[in-house]
């Protein structure tokens, strides 16, 4: 059973708590603030900065929140490279799908096949 105990030890330090309670609460606070922010910002017209500023800002906030959740709640911060890779890769492929689909729609007017 000696094996068992030192095995326990090995697991304990293997999965030492990533961030303690206050850490979790901090992340939570960030998320709530982000939500409130995105709501309030959405109500005023930011087009005077440049057209579509609202959209950009909303997406920026959303990305920040997502990053928080992934890094801390999903423990990516403490995960092996492969997890990072898969997280990044999935968004990269999403980007491919968006970009290569839109490159058609955005340039279609220029081609002879115009709507």
């Amino acid at each position, binding site marked *: 059973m000696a094996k068992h105990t030192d095995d326990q030890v090995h697991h304990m330090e293997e999965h030492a708590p990533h961030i303690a309670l206050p850490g979790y609460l901090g992340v939570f606070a960030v998320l709530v603030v982000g939500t409130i922010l995105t709501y309030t910002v959405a109500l005023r017209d930011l087009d005077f900065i440049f057209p579509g500023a609202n959209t950009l800002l909303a997406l920026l906030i959303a990305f920040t929140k997502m990053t928080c959740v992934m890094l801390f709640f999903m423990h990516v911060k403490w995960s092996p490279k492969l997890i990072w890779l898969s997280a990044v890769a999935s968004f990269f492929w999403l980007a491919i799908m968006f970009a290569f689909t839109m490159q*058609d729609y955005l340039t279609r007017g220029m081609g*002879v096949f115009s709507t």
Partner: protein
Amino acid sequence: MQNVDAISTDFIEPKKNYLNNGTTLKSWLLTKDHKRIAIMYLITVSLFFLAGGMYAATIRLELLTPESDLLNTQTYNKVFTTHGVLMIFFFLIPAIPAVLGNFLLPIMIGAKDLALPRINLLSLYIYWLAGLFAIWALLQGGVDTGWTFYVPYSTTFSNTYVMAVGLAVFINGFSSILTGLNFIVTVHTMRAPGMTWFRLPLFVWAHYAVALVMILGTPVIAITVLLLALERFAHIGIFDPAIGGDPILFQHMFWFYSHPAVYIMILPGMGVVSELISNFSRKKIFGYEFIAFSSIAIAVFGFLVWGHHMFVSGQSVYAGMVFSFLTMVVAVPSAIKMFNWTATLYKGSVSFDTPMLYALGFMGLFLIGGLTGLFLGSMGLVVHLTDTYFVVAHFHYVMVGGQVIAYLGGIHYWWPKMTGRMYSEFWGKISAMLVFVGFNLTFFPQFILGYMGMPRRYAAYPPEFQVLNIFSTAGASVLGIGLLLPVIYLIHSLFAGKLAGDNPWMLPGLEWRIPSPPPTENFASTPVVTWEAYEFGEDSGLDLDEARRRDLVTVT
């Protein structure tokens, strides 16, 4: 060829292997053994291949004459659609990964099983469920949209069972997702000590690449088919132009998966061929790293070229340029593979056993398939060639000439390992030749037909195209015989075949170092790998002299 009758019966004491370890139906249906799951896949996939083949035969017969006389147009449309759906979704995509990959991947990396055996079994059941849906749809009266389900025909105008088949495709998607997921996890976590990434057989590399495509691509077809069903069911107005939708959007989303799907079908084939070429010329494969990385490169770039299916569809000309350019780029990794395989033969010790014949056939046919791919990547030419028989010929050269031939080669190569029996080498060679000749007879004329301008999916065609169609049909009959032969002699070998022994060809791969058929947990104790991949020399740990002695005994 003497290497077949390696061991005579009386030396063998009955061993416990995955086949005789539990014989009840339950022990098969609830098994978590990757080998049994692979065998069940093998059976189902073969049945679907047979069915799809029948439809193909019907098509060729109908096209013997210009008029639509054997089938009326309605039936013909259903027949070619069914041929496409069955072959692509239920044979080509699962065939090599789910059968050979399932069986061999864990053994090749020295693992007891796939990392997630339950998931593996689940994927089999999902595949069966999807298959049932497809068959049900067929019995109901089939579907006539073409396997591409182009809107708005499929959403608004077809009165056949689009939803049922769509559902089948949707479900089937998850089967291949789970398989891919399983492979990735297994390759990452289950490698035996000493089995470093660059000691992996190229078969494993290929499957790793395929798994990536499966995971990243398949969900998109799932959601697309879902939207298609919604559109048909309640007119979302996303695909149907009559209510503000956009049919081109469907084509984008469809091909985002369906072009990479082509690589799902061909990459495992390339993996198998790499194995065969290297092993049957008993020589380390030329440029191992390049072949390995070209697989990954194909998997990645494969996602960037889907637009070349849409050059005349009304897509923006500029998007077309980008897609065409990237298509040309994808050609390069395939070329690299071709050259490396050829170079591997150089100064080898090449033996022409049946699997090797298939491998060489693959190289020939894939060469043509790949080069005609360039024709279809070059925009100016594609305007004339898309939706003609040129395209049909091209993708049959890649799919049948590539994937199916490689699959047959793989089956022949690992058959002794799977069953412990050796098939008749003579008939093996015959069928290999028949397939090669018959295939070229069938599909080469279609290139000419295509350039002549015969559109695909035509039940009736202008009479001047008849001669070439007759050639094609004639070839198809030869091809059919060539494909049926293996079914006969392989099944025959199960009962009357000579016992193969653990390593009939004295090859270094891990799968050849365990008994055949393998025991349930593959390895008595986890192996420690100390040799490079494709290591044929003395330091491969193979007792070659013993093998030679053994042969002498049996010959005299």
